[in-house]
């Protein structure tokens, strides 16, 4: 088994750029370098034509019209424009007042949605954050329960970035349309891996990013529905009025060309990629679960993305575990791996305890993941967990039958 090390299993963090994407981008740096907003010469026209083509490719992937695509710098910006832009546009009262409107989101959202929500709270909006059950799924019923007469916006991710769980997006969208509420979904982990039809899926505004779909970093998109309803968003950055006035700034033409190409490739290849990765993921999880005790898969067992696995290995700490598998690039919900030194708020929100978050590992696979790499990961994760359990006081206590939840710990 010849495996090239290190192995990349962090596709949910970012994907390598597909060489076909890079090839499409290259002419737009030095040769076709025009500003897409230059309307009066051939350099501008060529750039504009390239952007137009990319817009169609992006739209096709999600069943939208080309005009409904707004270029951004990535999902963080898309989410900011969507959440702040919709709230401010549809606010019941003006800036500086209270009672401007009600927004629904969830505790499992990415910070790029949670932080805009927090800033809107300071601006006079009310926000309800739904907490899911332990399976991590946000259902339409959960949304229905918290909708109010003054609800103006629902923002919920399609698939979670840490555990891959899939929310009931089409159903939630239908509910929002019934109640004339704008529905935004952060689909960063979903688009390019799973089919999207923004019309059938009842989506008004949707964010996604180039670098999660084998495209370049620094390039994202926002779908903004133009019909039934025609969604308007207040710009968060003032300037030249590009992108239907919703996002000013000279377009990143090479990035956009790459983004479009990446979308086109995903449209062709996502079904076969998904089927292949599901097999690898299932092998990965079932092997690890059968080789060791007290191993848990986090999130709903079926309703989750097929290329991602979030597992907790009892009695070992995530960062310590990652140190033992230094040839496998992955993520952990452990506090030690986060800048804030807090364990994953997503895993905590599932109500399964900080302990589980500390012991968690997220592995995400993609277009170039091979079965040999998965076998290598199974082998080395098993070894590392066994090594760490051999020095874990918690594992000893477990083996002696001591109930860890009843021990008087000296927390610091």
């Amino acid at each position: 088994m010849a495996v090239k090390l290190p192995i990349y299993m962090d596709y949910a963090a970012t994907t390598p750029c597909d060489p076909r994407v890079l090839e499409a981008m290259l002419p737009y740096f030095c040769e076709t370098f025009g500003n897409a907003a230059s309307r009066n010469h051939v350099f501008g026209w060529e750039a504009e034509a390239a952007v137009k083509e990319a817009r169609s490719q992006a739209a096709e992937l999600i069943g939208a019209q080309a005009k409904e695509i707004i270029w951004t710098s990535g999902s963080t910006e898309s989410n900011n424009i969507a959440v702040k832009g919709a709230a401010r546009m549809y606010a019941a009262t003006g800036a500086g007042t209270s009672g401007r409107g009600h927004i629904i989101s969830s505790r499992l959202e990415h910070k790029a949605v949670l932080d805009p929500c927090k800033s809107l709270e300071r601006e006079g909006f009310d926000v309800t954050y739904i907490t899911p059950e332990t399976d991590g799924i946000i259902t339409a019923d959960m949304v229905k329960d918290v909708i109010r007469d003054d609800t103006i916006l629902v923002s919920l991710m399609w698939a979670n970035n840490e555990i891959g769980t899939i929310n009931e997006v089409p159903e939630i969208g239908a509910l929002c349309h019934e109640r004339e509420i704008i529905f935004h979904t952060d689909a960063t982990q979903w688009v390019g891996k799973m089919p999207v039809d923004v019309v059938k899926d009842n989506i008004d505004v949707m964010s996604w990013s180039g670098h999660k779909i084998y495209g370049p970093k620094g390039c994202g998109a926002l779908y903004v529905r133009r019909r039934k309803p025609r969604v308007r968003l207040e710009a968060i950055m003032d300037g030249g009025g590009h992108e239907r006035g919703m996002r000013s700034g000279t377009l990143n033409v090479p990035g956009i060309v790459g983004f479009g190409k990446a979308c086109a490739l995903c449209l062709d290849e996502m079904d076969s990629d998904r089927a292949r990765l599901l097999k690898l993921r299932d092998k990965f999880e079932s092997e690890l679960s059968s080789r060791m005790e007290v191993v848990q898969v986090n999130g709903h067992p079926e309703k989750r993305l097929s290329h991602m696995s979030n597992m907790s290995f009892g009695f070992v700490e995530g960062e310590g575990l990652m140190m033992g598998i230094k040839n496998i690039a992955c993520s952990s919900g452990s506090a030690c791996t986060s800048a804030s030194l807090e364990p994953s708020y997503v895993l905590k929100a599932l109500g399964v305890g900080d302990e589980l978050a500390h012991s968690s590992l997220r592995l995400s696979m993609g277009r170039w993941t091979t079965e040999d790499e998965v076998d290598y990961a199974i082998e080395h994760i098993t070894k590392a967990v066994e090594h760490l359990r051999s020095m874990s006081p918690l594992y000893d206590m477990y083996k002696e039958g001591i109930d860890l939840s009843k021990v008087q710990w000296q927390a610091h």
Partner: protein
Amino acid sequence: MAYSNKVIDHYEHPRNVGSFGKTQEVKERKDIGVGVVGAPECGDVMQLQIRVNDDGKIEDAKFKCFGCGSAIASSSLATEWIKGKTIDEALELRNSEIVEELSLPPVKIHCSVLAEDSIKTAIRDYQEKNDLNGNAQADSE
């Protein structure tokens, strides 16, 4: 974050891993002091056990650790340093010395604090079992 070579060495080849017996057996032995500090929900639990002879010398030390590489290295190093020392000498060990030896970055200083506390807690346990008036305070900074 990159780990220092010393942290990696302790992680890969931990010194003195183990215990002197099952939890209950160890509790009943007067020559052994046990210190367990930290909590699973905080992501760090260190268990340090010392075996002390009649002259008050730490003849042997064992550790077990649930935690990151720096926590494992800090506790492994702690056992190395206190073996062969008297209780009074072991009490002088400061977490800053561990930080320095392992080149721990600021975010990992708490690992060294835990190691110092585990030594003090183990010594206090030994002293209490033997009705000795010790001065082991787990209040390191």
